[in-house]
């Protein structure tokens, strides 16, 4: 059930970004659902689930982005893993803390992408002007919604 839930979330993220993104360009600019999925499942299911989710989501994103495989893989893996550690030590409740959590996850993802891109001598342009800020906001909104949804499923499983 857990595996299917993660697989479904990654598949939905993939379809939204690659299919809907063709018609609604803002989805690819202001939203990175792979980061959101990795962070969400890392936070709720622990660091190992976050690690695997992030790895799968990141590699998938790389495969269909035309870039080198591993760029997003490394960043999402790290995000998912660290989200699990954060979720283990901190209680992330309420929309404001969750918003901060997803903003942090997005910034971390961007920082890793920039760093790895530099090391691989393939610098990434992470957006100009306020685009990174919009990406943070978009991810935070999507993350809060997804987190609420997964959280409800998790509660019903426990009950």
């Amino acid at each position, binding site marked *: 059930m857990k595996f299917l839930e993660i697989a479904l979330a990654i598949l939905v993220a993939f379809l939204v970004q690659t299919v809907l993104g063709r018609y609604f360009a803002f989805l690819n600019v202001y939203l990175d659902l792979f980061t959101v999925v990795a962070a969400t499942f890392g936070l709720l299911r622990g660091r190992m689930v976050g690690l695997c989710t992030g790895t799968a989501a990141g590699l998938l994103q790389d495969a269909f982005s035309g870039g080198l*495989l591993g760029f997003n893989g490394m960043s999402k893996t790290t995000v998912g893993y660290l989200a699990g550690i954060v979720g283990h030590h901190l209680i992330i409740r309420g929309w404001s803390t969750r918003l901060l959590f997803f903003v942090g996850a997005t910034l971390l993802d961007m920082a890793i992408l920039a760093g790895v891109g530099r090391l691989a001598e393939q610098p990434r342009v992470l957006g100009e002007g306020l685009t990174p800020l919009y990406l943070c906001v978009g991810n935070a909104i999507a993350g809060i919604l997804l987190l609420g949804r997964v959280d409800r499923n998790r509660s019903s499983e426990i009950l």
Partner: protein
Amino acid sequence: MASTLNAPLGSRGGHFFFLFVLVVQALLLSSQVTTERGDAVLRGLIVALLSPFQRGAEAVVGGARSTWNGYVDLRGVREDNQRLREEVARLEQVVWLERDLVASYRRLSGVLELAERLPYEPIVAEVIGLDASAWFRTITVNQGKNRGVVLNAPVVAAGGLVGRVISLGPDVAQIQLLTDRDCAVGALLTRTRNRGIVAGSGEQSSPSGLLLNYVSNLQDVVEGDPIVTSGIDGIYHKGIAIGRVASVRNGPRLFKTITVEPAAKLARLEEVFILPVVGDIEITEQVE
């Protein structure tokens, strides 16, 4: 896989696994930077596995989008239709204006050509009024005494003879057309050198409005024969084109009944040339 994920790895073990995954991906990344082989295999595998989902979703989203666009397009058809009708109407007007410009150009080219061929300085006048009757027999032009126009001055246009000045004002002149019943011009058939008098028919006997009178039944006249002014009337210079024989038949008495097609387009005059009164200059025949 699920059991691995559920098993609580120790903190150190988890960190090692995390580092292992990162190292694997870093190796993967570095291998792609140096060679493309690993990239193609792994990427191809992932793409092959997930492409069917992507294609299916694309088909669904594309179909929905196409349906929506069709609906929106249908709504816009009426407005487009109205807009296009207005555009067509506007363009038709533009086309008519362009055609008018082309016609004006051709007409003025003819006028200019005639002006260059005339051996003396004509007064160029623009037609500003027509006789109110159905068949125009007089016209009014915008040049008069102030420009040196005198009574009985011959008037020509591109093509040939138009008529003569019959009344004058300071800045206007009235011109009697060849087709006027009271107009008569000494004429010469250039092919046979036979003479006659061209007069307005009053439209009943000649659709063109002109008759060539006083040509004997014994004379040789055929359709198409050019007719020019003979100069014997003392009004018109010799050699100005009047027209061509349109039809000819023997008359009941001594003379043929000959209708003449005017050389000048008398019903569509816009510019004319008022020539000096008769002198001793002849101009070139201008029958087309």
